[in-house]
């Protein structure tokens, strides 16, 4: 029997038992759909995060104590405002240097309250991070120098404290200290489920008094020359090492952050794919099971086919092709569902999803391979069946 004919025989046999075929496929459909969908979500998340990091600007340099690495704990910062001034001298322009000292705090206004991140910053933040105000104004040099108790609210905080009033001009209470709201940021939206508008900026000097510290957590620099950003980083680190012997500092660029985040999110995507892969494997075992049952159920069919001239090989090939057809058609259906699901998720939920060609190719290849691997045993059993015994079976 020619191969084309064998495909036809297998196809006809599957069509003659549509219900059973559909049920057999179900496991593979679900497996492939989840591979495609979960990989799409993993990839989409990675792309979104990368876009956001890139949005920070390619010439941004973050200076932190300790090392930036997957798995290393953040070190306690020894940095002070004097260090910030020193970094400004290294850069050559203090307006290109921003700082942060951040802590969670409860912020009150009237009988409303909100737990949020209160960041002590310099007036340079909007320049360095390209932040824009929706209303009011940002901190000034004199606000910072005098430690004036003024605050700029993130959009979420403004909404939650002043749902029906203009926030600018109002008083708020941060950890028992009164601040005056002077501005509200343009919303940034969500990122990885984190609300980026849930923050309050106050002068770093005021924040230090609030938290009872002389430290700052980190320094950010907008490098004037993108080409020499690595060299600038090295010079800043050398300066800080000189001021704090025995402490390690890192100056990391956007590219390095992308690399680290990419590693983490790559692992995440891999884990998602592996979980989905397991369900695909389970689907394959299901195919094998039902094929075995089907060999028993169709014993008489096999006996009859042999009686009219089918060779053992013809029967074996038929059952193998049936398994491959089941898993391939199941795979294609699963791909369609997975792509549809990914588009739906991306459209109606905040979770990003990006379908990748490699996940489609992989899922389809694996499902077809599953058909072959798990179809072999039932096929051999069918091929070896004794036609006389098969025909006597009732």
């Amino acid at each position, binding site marked *: 029997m020619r191969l084309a004919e064998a495909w036809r025989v297998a196809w006809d046999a599957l069509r*003659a038992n549509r219900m059973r075929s559909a049920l057999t496929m179900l496991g593979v459909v679900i497996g492939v759909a989840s591979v495609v969908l979960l990989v799409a979500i993993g990839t989409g998340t990675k792309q979104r995060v990368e876009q956001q990091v890139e949005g920070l600007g390619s010439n941004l340099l973050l200076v932190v104590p300790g090392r930036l690495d997957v798995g290393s704990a953040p070190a306690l910062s020894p940095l002070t405002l004097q260090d910030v001034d020193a970094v400004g001298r290294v850069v050559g322009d203090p307006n290109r240097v921003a700082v942060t000292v951040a802590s969670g705090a409860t912020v009150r206004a009237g009988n409303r309250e909100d737990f949020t991140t209160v960041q002590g910053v310099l007036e340079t933040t909007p320049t360095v991070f390209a932040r824009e105000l929706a209303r009011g104004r940002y901190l000034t040099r004199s606000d910072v120098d005098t430690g004036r108790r003024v605050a700029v609210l993130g959009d979420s905080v403004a909404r939650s404290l002043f749902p029906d009033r203009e926030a600018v001009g109002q008083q708020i209470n941060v950890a028992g200290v009164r601040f005056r709201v002077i501005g509200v940021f343009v919303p940034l939206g969500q990122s990885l489920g984190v609300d980026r508008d849930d923050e309050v900026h106050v002068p770093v000097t005021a924040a230090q008094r609030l938290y009872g510290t002389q430290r700052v957590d980190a320094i950010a620099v907008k490098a004037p020359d993108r080409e020499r950003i690595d060299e600038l980083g090295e010079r800043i680190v050398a300066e800080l090492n000189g001021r704090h012997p025995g402490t390690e500092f890192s100056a990391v660029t956007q590219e390095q952050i992308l690399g680290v985040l990419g590693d983490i999110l790559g692992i995440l995507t891999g884990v998602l794919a592996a979980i989905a892969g397991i369900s695909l494997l389970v689907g394959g075992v299901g195919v094998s099971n039902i094929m075995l049952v089907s060999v028993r159920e169709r014993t008489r069919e096999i006996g009859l086919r042999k009686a*009219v001239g089918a060779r053992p090989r013809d029967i074996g090939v038929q059952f193998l092709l049936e398994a491959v057809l089941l898993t391939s058609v199941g795979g294609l259906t699963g791909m369609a569902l997975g792509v549809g699901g990914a588009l739906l998720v991306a459209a109606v939920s905040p979770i990003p999803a990006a379908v990748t060609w490699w996940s489609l190719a992989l899922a389809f290849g694996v499902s077809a391979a599953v058909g072959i691997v798990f179809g072999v045993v039932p096929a051999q059993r069918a091929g070896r069946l004794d036609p006389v015994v098969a025909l006597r079976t009732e």
Partner: protein
Amino acid sequence: MSRAPAIEAFDVSRTYELDGVSVPALRGVSLTVAAGDYVALTGPSGSGKSTLMHLLGGLDRPSGGRLVIGGREVGTLSAPELARLRNETIGFVFQAFHLLPRTSAVDNVALPLVYRGVGARQRRERAAAMLGRVGLGHRLHHRPNQLSGGEQQRVAIARALVTDPTVLLADEPTGNLDSTTGAAVLELLERLNVESGVALVMVTHDAEVAARARRRVAMRDGVVVTDSATDGGGGA
């Protein structure tokens, strides 16, 4: 007119192994089926009729003795060769019809041609023509469950004959049918035997049916006890 015999069995035996116990179903049967013959095979239940039919059709191999089908020594053939021999020279009709469920009459009839490598179009044409010959030209696309028992057996007969075999082996072909339908199926088999010259070997429990055959072979306990051809009991 003497032609080469379609099937020759020389002292053929068949022993089943069942849980370590040997069950001798056939104990030395010699039988020649001539081309175009019409043989009725009778005997009590368990006497080995079905076992013999399976051997004669190359569906099973003898434990001992020699078996020649269509001039070919069965003992020397591989499984694929034997399958091909079945396809080309033998047609089976079973008591239980054994049609593929959820498959149209014409596709059921065409099945043996699939394994002969005949193209799809030609298969359908030949199957349809064969269904016409058994009086089912108007039932081509019915499924087995949409056909009466008699019609199903006619489909099975058409399937057995679509390859133009030299021997038709029918094991109690009317066993599942009422007497009227059974008689019609029997007439059809006899007509095809005469018209196309296919040898007909038929197992039956019905003495009246057996009496209509040209030759009667009776079995008991795995051996042939009477054979009208050798005993001179019937018209040979």
